[in-house]
């Protein structure tokens, strides 16, 4: 049953990914004007224009270009960069590790803050601390990470001098970027954890556990929390894409050499093959992680209808 579901889910991904790839391909053709003008400027030499147009295969009919793009994609070939002629796939592969590291660390920050905070608030529902925690969480959701980042730099790098301002030179370099990226997610997850815990605490099995004399601590941690975490896991999975997209900003603030920086640099250099490649890779990662989350959720909670 489960295996069949997983297979069906994977097959269901293919048309979506195909459509995503098509959108990314057509973006460059949907814009008004000639892409060559956009890249070289309107006053470029005719010979340069012709050469670029040929290199990007823009002189061919769109249908042929589309076929070439898709065929390349299947082979893992994303074309090559206009500025330095290197394959887009290897440019992205070089940077992917840094982005992944950042996203994973941000996730640890978020989960590390959110689950204790959510459980704490739920266990003291309605108390001052509960309200304070949830007010802090709602505020946290509203803080833009492109503001939080510079503020953290000001406090911890400039004034206190504890952490590096930018770059990726030592282990401590990851701390501020991870907090910047993870803070909003922490806020969101703690709200989720709290409401999920409150739902669980009011269920019959918890009442039973209490009635048979299980300590409050045991009720919370051994019984309610385990079940309350299921919906939280789903949100964590769904937020991976948001993290990958949010990483673009965080990477810019901290000069972190990931895919986001590559994307922004390529946008300013108008290196469109690289731009397309980055967008494609990030959205594919998002789609796949979402599907995996869905499958995991079903493994974790067999009651969910397949």
């Amino acid at each position: 049953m489960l295996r069949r579901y997983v297979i069906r889910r994977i097959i269901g991904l293919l048309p979506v990914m195909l459509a995503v790839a098509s959108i990314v391909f057509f973006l460059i053709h949907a814009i008004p004007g000639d892409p060559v003008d956009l890249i070289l400027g309107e006053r470029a030499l005719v010979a340069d224009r012709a050469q670029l147009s040929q290199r990007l295969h823009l002189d061919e009919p769109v249908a042929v270009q589309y076929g070439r793009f898709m065929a390349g994609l299947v082979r893992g070939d994303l074309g090559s960069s206009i500025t330095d002629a290197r394959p887009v796939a290897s440019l992205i592969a070089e940077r992917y590790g840094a982005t992944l590291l950042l996203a994973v660390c941000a996730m640890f920050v978020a989960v590390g803050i959110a689950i204790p905070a959510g459980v704490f608030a739920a266990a003291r529902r309605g108390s001052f601390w509960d309200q304070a925690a949830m007010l802090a969480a709602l505020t946290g959701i509203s803080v833009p990470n492109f503001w939080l980042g510079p503020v953290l730099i000001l406090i911890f790098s400039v004034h206190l001098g504890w952490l590096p301002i930018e770059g990726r030179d030592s282990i401590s370099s990851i701390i501020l970027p991870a907090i910047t990226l993870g803070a909003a997610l922490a806020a969101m997850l703690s709200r989720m954890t709290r409401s999920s815990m409150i739902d669980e605490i009011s269920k019959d099995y918890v009442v039973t556990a209490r009635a048979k004399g299980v300590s409050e601590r045991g009720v919370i941690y051994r019984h309610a929390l385990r079940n309350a975490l299921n919906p939280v896991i789903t949100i964590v999975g769904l937020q991976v894409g948001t993290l990958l997209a949010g990483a673009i900003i965080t990477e810019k603030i901290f000069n972190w050499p990931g895919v986001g920086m590559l994307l922004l640099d390529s946008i300013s250099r108008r290196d469109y093959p690289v731009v397309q490649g980055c967008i494609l890779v990030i959205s594919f990662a998002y789609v796949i992680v979402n599907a995996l989350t869905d499958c995991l959720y079903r493994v974790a909670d067999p009651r969910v209808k397949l």
Partner: protein
Amino acid sequence: MKAFTSKLGFAIIVAMVLAALFAPYLAPYDPSEYHLDLSFAGPTFAHWFGNDADGRDVLSRIIFGARVSLGIGIAVVGISLVAGSAVGLIAGYAGGIVDRIFLFVSDVFLAFPSFLFAIAVAAFLEPSIANVVLILSLKGWVTYARLTRGEALSMRERDFVAAARASGAGAPRIVLKHLFPNMIGPVLVNASFGMAGVIMIESALSFLGLGVPVDTPSWGAMIDQGTQYLLIAPYLSIFPGIAIMLVVLGFNFLGDGLRDKLAPRGR
């Protein structure tokens, strides 16, 4: 607590809307007037929030920035809400193949994280306010469409719709007079959170230089310019950031309060 925060949210929004409407009267200075002699002058009584690299008054730019943020927010949420609800109602009420096509198209849009999608389109367009509205509406409609489709689907077979149908009402009448009024609550809740989201993404795009044109007083762009001078003039980034935080918080508070009142199922 909820009653208090949603009132607070509402108050913040009203204040911001008033600031945007009466910006020329409230702003102490012309937001784009250069005073090179005041370059990087910190906060003083004459210039509460200080002056930027070109000596422009930061407070005045923040007040005018409310026009950009709220204007874009209202335009995007308005377009997305109308277009999305129309599509969602049609898909949900028609069902069958129309609904299946709709589901696939919306799945594709949802396969992009919102912010990434905005960057992807912005990368190929010139920075302008109209383009920002276009970019954000291009994906914004999907949320409202999914929501109204789901509501329409669940209401389609209910008695009051059957009664309307039996009394001879046509599909457009049923959809507009009977279905839509019954889902205004959840739609409004979404619109409130939507305003928060749109303002956040617009600021983020402008922070990356992909949103509004340079020199437009936009909070996101102001933070970006400020971070270049973080060491000598930190207030340049701090104040616009607080403005974004307040308005986003306002809409989140309001949305939270509205949800408890209007759409208790979605909690």
